[in-house]
């Protein structure tokens, strides 16, 4: 674009159009970089493919700045935009994977505890978690550009679900502890009952023996 402006090849209308497109790409690049960083901090892992997409976006952006025609500049900017959207999709997909793993661990931890007293709509939430899982496991190579927005919405949703479940751990731990104490009490009373029965049998047998003597 710098080239085009310097050579006077841009009309005011096309210059305005190109400037707007540069601003849009800049916003998406910033958003993509934020998402990549967010997921890096969340998952404690840097996702290399999303960083590569940002690299490719940067490459097309730099090509756009030195393009010789406004058509080339527009084409390069649109390519940069697509790479930014792919970077967002790739990063968010890792975030969704992270939360699905958190939920998997939660369900394993409380596999022997009834969760519905604390989370009444558990079945509906489980169905929704399955749907989100199916969304990210569906193979997508060229469609990531089209689905980045939906992926972002699903990330917010799964984040809220995971927070709800993680916050219920305290209450579920109390229920689990209560069950443990009750079953221990039941076990003790069963043992005492059996001991009582054995003592009663022994006493009766001894009584019979001594009476006969």
């Amino acid at each position, binding site marked *: 674009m710098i080239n085009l402006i310097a050579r006077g090849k841009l009309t005011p209308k096309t210059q305005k159009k190109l400037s707007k497109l540069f601003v849009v790409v800049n916003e998406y690049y910033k958003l993509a970089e934020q998402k990549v960083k967010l997921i890096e901090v969340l*998952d404690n*892992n840097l996702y290399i493919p999303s960083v590569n997409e940002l690299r490719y976006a940067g490459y097309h952006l730099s090509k756009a700045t030195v393009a010789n025609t406004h058509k080339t500049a527009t084409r390069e900017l649109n390519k940069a935009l697509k790479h930014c959207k792919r970077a967002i999709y790739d990063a968010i997909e890792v975030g969704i*994977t992270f939360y699905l793993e958190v939920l*998997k661990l939660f369900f394993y931890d409380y596999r022997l505890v009834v969760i519905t007293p604390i989370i009444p709509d558990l079945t509906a939430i489980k*169905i929704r978690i399955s749907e989100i899982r199916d969304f990210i496991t569906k193979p997508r190579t060229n469609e990531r550009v089209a689905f980045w927005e939906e992926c972002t919405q699903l990330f917010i949703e799964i984040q809220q679900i995971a927070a709800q479940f993680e916050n219920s751990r305290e209450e579920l731990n109390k229920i689990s502890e209560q069950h443990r104490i009750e079953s221990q009490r039941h076990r003790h009373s069963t043992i005492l009952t059996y001991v009582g029965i054995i003592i009663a049998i022994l006493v009766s047998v001894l009584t019979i023996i001594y009476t006969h003597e």
Partner: protein
Amino acid sequence: MKSNNESNVLMEKKATKNSAIVKNIVSRFTRGNVNLQMGNYLTKKDQDARKKVLEQYDFLS
């Protein structure tokens, strides 16, 4: 059958050793990102493996 299993185990050990070497090289030459220096990064292969495990898990049970 037994030799197939043995060769699979050998290949897995080699792949683990190779990825450890790669992480070591990345850690040595990286500047500016703490996670890369500590070997905390994901490739597409790693992410696909995670997705495969999640695909097989039944959240409805």
